[in-house]
């Protein structure tokens, strides 16, 4: 039976007699349905009267999504079996009656949805053993959770979904593999080190900024360069990490020997505690900052390096010669490890770093439930940010694994007779939910990963995929386009 719960805040919605007459539906008037007490009273009515579908009618102000969610939980009704209609205070009775009829027709078409509860694996795999990975592991340990750390290079395969990822590892020595199951993955793999033999580096003249301090401290007075240039933002605009490192490296160099230092950068990235002070100290110590626009050219000429760029403060070309140049690795367009990205199956941003440029994912979420990212591999190269991300990732993993992973089996369904195994859905699914079932020779959906977005259903060339809660009949009924009962009944499932 369908129950219509009518909140007193609406007064007379539309003809109540008409609602009563709606086939099999019963109207339950109630007070303050959007409060926890309201939800409890609705749940009691649902149990007492054997209601299996519910329609909640309330005013536009009510937080109905939350009400529906808690009612579903309290009354153990599946997704799609509880629907809410919000009405503005003003509105005509006919329009309201039509909406109620459409919602009832759609409710009648909603199939029974079972729920599957799986106990998640309690362990978390942290990929990356740098400072970010360590911070994530420590945070997990402080929450009472076991974390396992590994380097990205030893991971060979990742399969499964939130609560149950099977990860294969390369054995030490390279012979064979072994596998282990984890509840969640935290990826803190960093970015590949800049290759000191590639452009723009020239051994001994143009070196990675990360190597600068080590190199200078090893030089004798005679070998020490008279002048030094640090280049930031060479290929891409970089974060505060490069700026901080450049200032510190120049101050370190000046503390060793009197050396003329230049820092070439697009913009001074000072948006972090203490960075403005560091910038001031560097300038007071005589470090010269040249803010350039566009490209910068470095040429190893003679025994030194020539740096040419257009100064945007003076508006003119500048050219300097120095004994040694250091280029920040953060300013090079380094994408995240391609092999790892492919294994994880998560999106990347414009620079090829992990995690799409989507505000709802920041800072640690990815398109796949159970996989979290932190630190440089997602583009957050600045140390304090990376540690903060790592803690957020640990907390999210902990929240995910603290209770059973509850999945409503309303995922995409593939019709095996129609599936031609073209793999369109497998390639398209943003959540890696579509897989191939080799035995049945058809595509198949992993319920735990499916987010019911419907992309697969929309793009399947053979129309082999449907989402049970969004069948054509339900959509037509909701839009009020299927008034004729015969066509609705045809769609109705047993």
């Amino acid at each position: 039976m369908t129950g219509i719960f009518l909140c007193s805040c609406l007064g007379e919605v539309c003809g109540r007699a008409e609602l009563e007459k709606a086939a099999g539906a019963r109207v339950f008037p109630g007070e303050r349905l959007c409060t926890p007490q309201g939800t409890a009273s609705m749940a009691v009515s649902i149990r007492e009267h054997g209601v299996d579908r519910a329609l909640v009618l309330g005013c536009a102000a009510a937080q109905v999504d939350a009400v529906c969610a808690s009612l579903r939980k309290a009354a153990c009704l599946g997704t799609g079996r509880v629907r809410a209609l919000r009405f503005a205070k003003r509105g005509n009775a006919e329009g309201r009656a039509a909406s109620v009829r459409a919602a009832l027709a759609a409710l009648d078409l909603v199939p029974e949805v079972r729920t599957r509860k799986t106990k998640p694996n309690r362990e978390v795999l942290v990929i990356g053993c740098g400072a970010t990975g360590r911070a994530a592991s420590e945070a997990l340990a402080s929450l009472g959770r076991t974390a396992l750390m590994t380097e990205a290079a030893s991971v060979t395969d990742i399969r499964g979904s939130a609560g149950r990822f099977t990860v294969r590892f390369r054995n030490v020595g390279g012979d064979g593999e072994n596998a282990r199951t984890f509840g969640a993955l935290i990826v803190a793999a960093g970015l590949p080190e800049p290759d000191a033999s590639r452009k723009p580096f020239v051994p001994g003249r143009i070196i990675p900024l990360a190597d600068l301090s080590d190199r200078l401290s090893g030089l004798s007075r005679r070998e020490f360069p008279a002048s030094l240039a640090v280049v930031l933002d060479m290929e891409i605009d970089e974060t505060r990490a490069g700026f901080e490192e450049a200032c510190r490296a120049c101050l370190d160099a000046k503390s060793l020997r009197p050396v003329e230092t230049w820092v070439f950068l697009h913009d001074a990235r000072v948006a972090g505690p203490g960075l403005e002070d560091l910038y001031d100290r560097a300038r007071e110590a005589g470090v010269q900052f040249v803010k350039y626009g566009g490209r910068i050219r470095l040429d190893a000429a003679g025994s030194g390096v020539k740096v040419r760029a257009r100064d945007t403060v003076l508006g003119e070309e500048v050219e300097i010669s120095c004994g040694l140049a250091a280029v920040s690795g953060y300013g090079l367009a380094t994408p995240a490890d391609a092999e790892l990205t492919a294994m994880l199956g998560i999106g990347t941003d414009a620079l090829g770093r992990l995690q799409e440029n989507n505000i709802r994912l920041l800072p640690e979420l990815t398109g796949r439930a159970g996989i979290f990212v932190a630190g440089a591999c997602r583009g957050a190269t600045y140390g304090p940010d990376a540690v903060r991300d790592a803690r957020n990732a640990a907390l999210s993993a902990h929240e995910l694994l603290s209770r059973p992973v509850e999945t409503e089996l309303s995922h995409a369904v593939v019709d095996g007779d129609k599936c031609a195994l073209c793999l369109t859905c497998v390639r398209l699914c943003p959540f890696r939910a579509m897989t191939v079932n080799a035995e049945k020779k058809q595509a198949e959906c992993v319920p735990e990963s499916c987010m019911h977005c419907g992309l697969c259903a929309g793009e399947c060339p053979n129309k082999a995929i449907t989402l049970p809660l969004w069948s054509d009949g339900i959509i037509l009924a909701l839009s009020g386009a299927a008034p004729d009962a015969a066509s609705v009944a045809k769609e109705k499932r047993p």
Partner: protein
Amino acid sequence: MSTYIVVGSGVAGCAAALAFAKAGNKVELLEAEGRIGGKVLSYCCKATDSCSRCGVCTAHDLFAQILAHPGVAIRTAVDLRTVREAGGRTSVRVGASGPWIDPKACIDCGRCVPACPSRAIRRYARGGVSFHHIEGTQCADAPDAPCPSCRNACPTGAIHAADPAGTLKKADGVLLALGHRPFDPALKPRLGYGRFPNVFTGAEAEEILSRRTTLTRADAASTAAPRSVAFIQCVGSRDPLLKRNWCSAVCCAYALRLARLLAHRDPGAEITVYAIDVQDFDKALTPLRAELEAKGVKIVRGVPSSVDSAAGGRLRLLVEDPKSGARTAEHDAVVLSVGLGPDPRARATAARFGLDPDADGFLPEGGGGVRAAGTCAAPQGIPGSMAQGRAAALELMSGRAGGHVGSRAGGHG
């Protein structure tokens, strides 16, 4: 199960409160203002035909979750009476400075609005969050002349009376998310704020653009869109003379996003951003800057030192130029990107919990049972504040369970 007190219900406080509650703890969310949400509620969505990743919608999602979570108790118009620490627990006597509406019990029926004789009740409804709140300054309720009109009208008992005595709350940890205060641009009189109607602060511009299509004041004579808009960055930040020598971290981001919004609403508009350095350091902002520069938004190095009136109601900006000394530029409207700074009220509150601010006035992250997060700890944007709030919550919760870290170099799976 532990109990935590979160002081401040902006994005950082709410993110932390939700993290505590999700881990099965009880949370008392305390807010000094009459309504929850902090400053983010007055910011606008800065999407054009596509999202600009400003994060205002994620803040609303967060508030909706907080309002629905049974583990979080909310109190607004809070007046902290006494704070005591004993045996690792903090006891706070929480009073109410005036009548307050519990947003969790409010069903948004609106019956209190006409009942109030002094019209002090406001409604907030946006982004799936709706509730009523009392504007404390307008409420006529007083200890000697109590006014129970709204309380009598409320069908759910959501409106509570002022509570001068207060009730005692004990907590295992306290998170301070006390927020910031934007710089008052009147302290830089040469920039013309308050003298010219077409000089706005960034926050004002946001509020106007969230309600109107053009950047004009409600009482302006003409509602025509300004054809040429200048953004002046670093107003009240990176300024040692004002003793505000820090980068405010969010202004470049909001100025660029507002510039994008203006350029979208009026494609012919000339938009110039005057900046010392553009702080574009995350995955959203680097592409955003490139997009704006491709669209013709000019980013000019150097910040104008003064704003004066010019013919036809326009504004003349004096821009320092290292080569030619100084030059002038004319614009129809100017937006001052005022920086975030510490809030003096936050300083007093933090001192009661034993946290002393640094030289700039921002709070340290703290340790032990009291921590600070959000813009009271450092200038930062919406995602950053939420992340710091959650990280601080984790620090407070951690150490209450034992776990271990294994490492795996290779074969021993």
